[in-house]
């Protein structure tokens, strides 16, 4: 197991190099000069050739491309993501400050969507073609097609503006009590988790249906095991691999969705930082956020792979 993890981590090195190159090219290769983009955002500066050349030298943009990339890589390894052209703060520090908010939101969305979707999927499979199965089907069809930003606005409209139950936006803090945290968290987390829940419920249903038709389930029932035990212990455990795979893949969409959700709910996370930085033409920060989101995503997928073994002892990794 340890050897498998080590091998997987080693195999990630070329992938990480590729990712770093694409992220690097966002700022340095794609058309659009970062320095003139930055200067154009500030009306008080009339850029003359000298200032531009000076700034280009300051950010290392006058070096050959390959040198720039190597410097970028060397800095990355030191945990240096560059300096924000807007706030003059180190990008890594800015992102680290915002990280807890995004993690809180994403985890809450993940918890809510699995807590809702897996039981619903199981019930739909066990009671196939019942009214609850049909209801879940309609719900997941809507959930897959509904734009998250629209759902977010509808929730805000209902629960904040009309009923006045929940705060309109922003994040709660623990020193104001757990209630404050939860009241701020519930709407954005539900919005973010809804689409994922819809898909997860469908996958759980089809995966459970497949497992429930197997012989060992009939055996378990035949030997008189309690129905709940058969469904949750024997069937669900074996249906879990596809569920886990989809959860892992969907986590990327969760991260992408957080950009939109954080913007709607003024959530002080990395997603909102990314959007604000695009508006401020602060490409170094955008670059950093893309990199961090992608790293989280591939780490989650690695974790999912490792979790397979924990769930299914038949999977051997040698």
């Amino acid at each position, binding site marked *: 197991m340890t050897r498998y993890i080590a091998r997987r981590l080693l195999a990630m090195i070329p992938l990480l190099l590729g990712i770093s190159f694409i992220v690097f090219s966002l700022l340095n290769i794609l058309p659009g000069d970062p320095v003139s983009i930055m200067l154009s955002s500030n009306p008080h500066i009339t850029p003359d050739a000298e200032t531009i050349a000076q700034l280009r030298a300051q950010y290392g943009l006058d070096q050959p491309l390959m040198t720039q990339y190597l410097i970028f890589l060397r800095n990355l390894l030191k945990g240096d993501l560059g300096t924000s052209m807007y706030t003059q703060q180190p990008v890594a520090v800015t992102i680290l400050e915002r990280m807890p908010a995004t993690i809180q939101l994403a985890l809450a969305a993940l918890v809510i969507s699995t807590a809702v979707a897996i039981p619903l999927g199981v019930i739909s499979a066990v009671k196939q073609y019942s009214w609850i199965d049909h209801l879940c089907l309609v719900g997941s069809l*809507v959930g897959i097609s509904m*734009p998250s930003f629209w759902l977010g606005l509808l929730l805000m409209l209902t629960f904040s503006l009309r009923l006045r139950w929940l705060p309109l936006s922003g994040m709660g803090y623990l020193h104001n009590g757990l209630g404050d945290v939860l009241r701020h968290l519930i709407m954005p987390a539900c919005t973010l988790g809804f689409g994922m829940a819809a898909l997860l419920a469908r996958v759980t249903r089809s995966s459970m249906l497949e497992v429930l038709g197997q012989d060992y389930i009939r055996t378990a029932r035949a030997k008189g095991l309690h129905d709940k035990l058969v469904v949750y212990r024997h069937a669900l455990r074996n249906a879990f691999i596809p569920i886990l795979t989809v959860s892992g893949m969907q986590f990327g969409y969760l991260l992408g969705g957080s950009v939109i959700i954080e913007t709607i709910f003024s959530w002080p996370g990395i997603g909102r930082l990314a959007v604000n930085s695009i508006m401020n033409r602060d490409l170094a920060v955008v670059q950093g956020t893309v990199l961090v989101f992608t790293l989280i995503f591939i780490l989650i997928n690695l974790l999912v792979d490792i979790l397979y073994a924990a769930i299914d002892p038949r999977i051997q990794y040698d």
Partner: protein
Amino acid sequence: MAKLESPPRVPASITDGSRAGRAWRQFRRNRLALIGLGIITVLWGVALLADYIAPYDPYEMDLLNPLLPVGSPGHPLGTDNFGRDVLSRIIWGGRASLSVGIVVVGISASLGLILGVVSGYYSGWIDLMLMRITDLFFAFPFFILAIGVIAALGPGLRNVMLVLGLVTWPEYARMVRAKTLALRGEPFVEAARAAGAGDLRIMFFHILPNCIGPVIVMAALGMANAILAASGLSFLGLGVQPPEPEWGSMLNEARVYMRTAPHLVMVPGLVIMLAVMGLNFIGDGLRDALDPKMSTIRR
């Protein structure tokens, strides 16, 4: 579609037309797919005929009548903060969704088809390299990558379409590659080669036509996702720029007036959902009709 409604009276499986005919009969039996087809036909048909159908100019402001509610005389869906007719803007906004759907899928499917068939046909180092590139694309959360590239290229509908096309092709490439690997050794390919067909001819005239079923399914679902992503980007202010009518950016503009004019939030969101749902239904129906073995996991 009219041609498909009366399939030729030849035994099934002889000609291509009958295969399409059989698929259409299968598709027709799927009620959700027909609903989807209806929704999309209406939304895009109306968008194409916007010049004749839209009651007002979508840019025409009427500052004396801002934020009229749904059902106001002359403005069935009300007006926005500048007094512009919401119905007309929704109708014109359909054009953006139509072009996003077609252009994005056009770019990603053609790139994916070409790279996929080349990768699967030649194997070797070309295959290895192309597949590592697709791995790399799959390592990124797709919306995040799209945002990063938009940040570098600048906002606007053209860049959004370009970016979404360029980040979604690997799905098509993987599928076509897998199909090509399976078909490469088939007798009909051997026969074509024996008859003197070159590599290009075999790839594009013999192998690719056999991949078309799953590609059509992916294209329908891909359009749904492209429209969802593009309207999301417009909502963030990175896509279509105001005052141009587009459903996502209409929602963005409506946020400020949510309290006083909730219809400005309701209507565009509902239309986006209908368009995405319609395409998803069509995609599911096509999958059942063309490619029953394909998995139900998507996105």
